[in-house]
């Protein structure tokens, strides 16, 4: 079942519209705030069950009034170590570009029940450390399925997860996805047919859940991601789903991120609040970094989506890409993880 927060907001928003629209007054304004604090460090990453590689991303934030472009600067010269506390194993995470730091595969094999943290030393000698997290047991995905939603302007295919929630466990979940679409590619001459593949990003949903309403039951239908029906779904579409179990603190953090993303913002909404993560500034506890380093139990599943299977959804016409090779994030090279095949031939 969905969280009750969204409908909690529908009522006032709707009624405000009733009167707000009649007197017609929503304007964007500029806010006179005091000078922004120097942008802090942001840290996002996780260690999961299995050999990894485990990854963390380090960036500088931008002041709110600034454009984000070019300001979320990757940090490339930090020293980062992942520590497994029970065994004392320390694995260096080395920079692999764009502020991404990874362990070598197998350097630490994540195990549920064990406790992990990372240590970050920046070039300016500031040292940060994540508060330790004990990895929850992963919960396997039984199946993924789709419910079409045709009430939006653009029809959506809602991918949902079915799983067996263990009784008594903390029961906090978050889903991450990687979406890849396949498009017919029509070079000259037309034969033989070719395809190219593109990355469809992470989507707009931050999907988190807790088992308050389904502890110990088979949970059917937790929303993982909404996929708009566009030309990208006209051929084959692959969704790689990571179902992660979280600690309560991590769930709280991601829940606040989700709330901020979904929040429409009205006087009837809860006031926005600072989001506290688990990254501590060792030298100055009053200036923490923003972000979270989680220990997660993770199970993976791949789902092949075929929009033609849902009669209620208007099928998009083919839009063959004639410029596959020149588009960014689109490649004529088949990704190594690609498993889906098109049900329709170009």
């Amino acid at each position: 079942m969905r969280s009750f927060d969204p409908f909690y907001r529908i009522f006032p928003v709707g009624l405000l519209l009733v009167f707000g629209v009649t007197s017609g007054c929503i304007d964007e304004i500029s806010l006179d705030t005091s000078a922004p604090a120097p942008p802090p460090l942001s840290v996002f990453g996780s260690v999961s069950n299995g050999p990894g590689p485990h990854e963390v991303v380090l960036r500088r934030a931008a002041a709110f009034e600034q454009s984000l472009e070019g300001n979320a600067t990757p940090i490339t010269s930090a020293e980062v170590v992942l520590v497994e506390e029970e065994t004392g194993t320390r694995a260096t995470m080395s920079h692999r570009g764009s502020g991404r730091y990874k362990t070598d595969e197998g350097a630490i094999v994540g195990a549920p029940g064990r406790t992990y943290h990372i240590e970050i030393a920046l070039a300016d000698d500031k040292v940060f450390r994540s508060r330790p997290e004990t990895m929850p047991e992963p919960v396997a995905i039984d199946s993924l399925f789709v419910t079409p939603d045709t009430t939006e302007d653009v029809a959506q295919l809602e991918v949902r997860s079915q799983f067996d929630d263990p009784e008594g466990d903390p029961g906090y979940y978050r889903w991450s996805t990687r979406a890849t679409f396949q498009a017919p590619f029509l070079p000259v001459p037309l034969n033989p047919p070719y395809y190219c593949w593109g990355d469809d990003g992470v989507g707009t949903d931050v999907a988190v859940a807790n088992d308050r309403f389904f502890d110990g039951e088979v949970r059917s239908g937790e929303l993982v991601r909404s996929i708009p029906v566009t030309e990208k779904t006209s051929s084959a579409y692959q969704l790689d789903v990571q179902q992660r179990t979280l600690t309560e603190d991590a769930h709280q953090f991601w829940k606040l991120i989700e709330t901020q993303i979904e929040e429409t913002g009205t006087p009837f909404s809860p006031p926005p609040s600072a989001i506290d993560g688990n990254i501590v500034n060792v030298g100055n506890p009053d200036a923490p970094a923003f972000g979270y380093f989680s220990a997660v139990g993770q199970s993976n599943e791949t789902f092949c989506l075929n929009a033609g299977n849902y009669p209620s959804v208007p099928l998009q016409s083919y839009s063959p890409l004639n410029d596959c090779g020149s588009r960014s994030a689109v490649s004529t090279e088949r990704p190594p993880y690609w498993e889906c095949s098109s049900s329709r031939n170009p």
Partner: protein
Amino acid sequence: VLIGFVLFLSVMLPTRFAHAQQNDTEERFTVRGRVTDAQENRPLVGATVTLPASDRGASTDSTGAYALSLPPGSYTVKYDFVGYESETRVVELQADRTVNVRLSKSTVSLDELLITEEASERNVESLTMGVERLEPQSLERGPTFLGEPDIIRSLLQLPGVSSVGEGAAGFNVRGGSVDQNLILFDGTAIYYPSHLLGFFSPFNADVVSDVTLYKGGIPAQYGGRAASVLRVEQKVGDRDRYGGRGGVSPITSRLSVEGPIVEDKASFVLGGRLSYVNWLLDAVDNPNLQRSNASFYDANVGVNIKPTEDNEIDLMGYRAYDDVGISDTLFTYATTNASVEWRHLTGDSFVTRLKGAFSNYDFRVRDQDRFEAFTLNSQIRTYKAKAEATWTPNDRHTVDIGLQSAYHEINPGDVAPNSPVSDVDTFATDNEYGIESAAYLSDNITVTDRLSARLGLRFSMFNQTGPSNTYVYASNRPRNPQTIIDTVTTESGEIAKTDYGLEPRVSLRYRLTDQSSLKVGYNRMRQYLHLITNSTAALPLDVWHVSDAYRQPQIADQVSVGYFQNFDDGAVITSVEAYYKWIDNLIDYKPGAELLLNRTLNADLLNGIGRAYGVEMFAEKTEGQLTGSISYTYSRAERKVDGATPIQRINGGDWYPANYDRPHEISISATYTGDDPRAAWNANFVYRTGRPITYPVSKFVVDDRPIAQYSSRNQVRIPDYHRLDLSLRLDLERREKRGWNASWTLSIYNVYGRKNAYSVFFGRKENGNIPQPFRLSIFGTVFPSLTYTFEF
């Protein structure tokens, strides 16, 4: 015990002392009686009884009774009540005498203001501070939105009363939150005081006879909320003739009728109000709005029976209902209240009152979305009984004593699927039960001609009763579902937790001169029911909860001091009041707290303290063709949440301004009645500091999405608020034959169309964007309206 003893002494000793004095000096006789409304026969509470030739005087108590002890002689006694014609009686006092007086309502537009703080004599004479009276018959000249006279909107013009935004439900009194106001409609509790979310007040002004707001100096008979008491009395039907009132405005209509059932013995009053907003929604070229609907109604019924001169019975019923549909979701919420009261007068000095009252508030949400179709219900229900008495043994004492008990039953929420294919599971949180009881004793004492006191003591107790399941959290760790170490089960009929305490109430008035006085007051209030709400403005979907092992009773202590000065025999009255308030056990919320359908709600709550302080200055011109008032208020409302661990702190444990902290407030009101008293021009102006908000300071990229990081709580303010309203009321000639008396009111709300920020919020222009500041101005334009009001 000590206070009780002092009270006892104060009741007994001065009486004996007074008698002793009488024997030693000269003989005195008492003139006593009741002051009532001539039409409705209802007691007029707080009417003044004065001897214009001397500085002696008294005011009537809650039963309309008064007493004055004087040496033998001939006296001219004047009886005054705001909105009524004064009466003067010559009393030959050679023995104790009873003089009952019936005052008639002023028939033409009154000279006094919309809001009369107190009648001019009472400004200096009365014991109490921080008490505001509102005259319903002059509401139409107040700030009317779309022509609807509104009691709560009028309250917001008063010093020390504010709200988070124009059109938000509820109000804040002297730094208190919206749930800290005890709102009593004929003694029955109103749990959500609004129609359509705050656009209209729940009271039909035509069936209301008296509105009193106690901001401080709260009498001992009231308790259960930390900040204020708003007492709204339903009128009593006329026992002699049939009549009615009504009004038609662009989106609401109202009608009330009254008259005798048995002449001189029993009467009725019926009232109703209906909205028709939907034509407005359909008129807007917006398909979403055209698919929406919003409507409300309320209905009042009252029966008064006076079988004998000494007995009176009042029956009252009230129903308010709102229905809002937006897309697939239907919201309804309703208040259903009823009460019965029996009053018995024994001799001239003893009035007994027995009352039973019932209040019910419930809301329902029905979602018709196929796979997620559900129905959600929540309800609070209160059964109250009380026995009270007022005894006026002599002219120096008026003693109030009473016992009260209320049984509360709350369903915090249950949800169930309402379609066979719905994915929603059935889920319910445990019902909550509690018994709230109180005993009180209070005495109004005239100590000397200059010094008067009201000493009151209330003892209140709350028993959380079963069945209940209380989760016990580890004491040294932040509360969360993982730190539950035990569950304590209480069976039905057993007590799970008891809280109790004394609530002293003290008011002193010292008359410096005929025209000036100094007053000081102290009161303690204990609140056992808590509205759990984390939105800036209160919602009809917010749920009340009882005090339990983790939600402690809120306790507020207020001290206040005031200087009251009249000029020109009360033609101008002025006052300055200052107060300081401490509040314990305030409830605050963890970021992202889940407040609805949460079995571990206490894990999401934080405990804090509060402080509020301010100065309220008021001046009013009460006579002449131009009358009016001006007030300035400086007030602060701050909170502090400083728990043991970082997650239990807000702003690092420092003080921060409450959402409704609005330091500066200016309110000006003026009425001009020219040579023709049938036309009254009215203007209202209000200015308030913008309320504080939390703002974003930096932004990050998380999973390719921009995310804002916010400042600590409430560090900047939205733009200041100001607004001017004008109105012209024209009373038409009375057509005697039909007894039809009508008027037209043209009102213009927000004359210069200022786009006052209802709210500044951080929204996204489109998916994937960073939140940007937006200003929402609900009443951001000029709202003219024309209302036809009639009386027969």
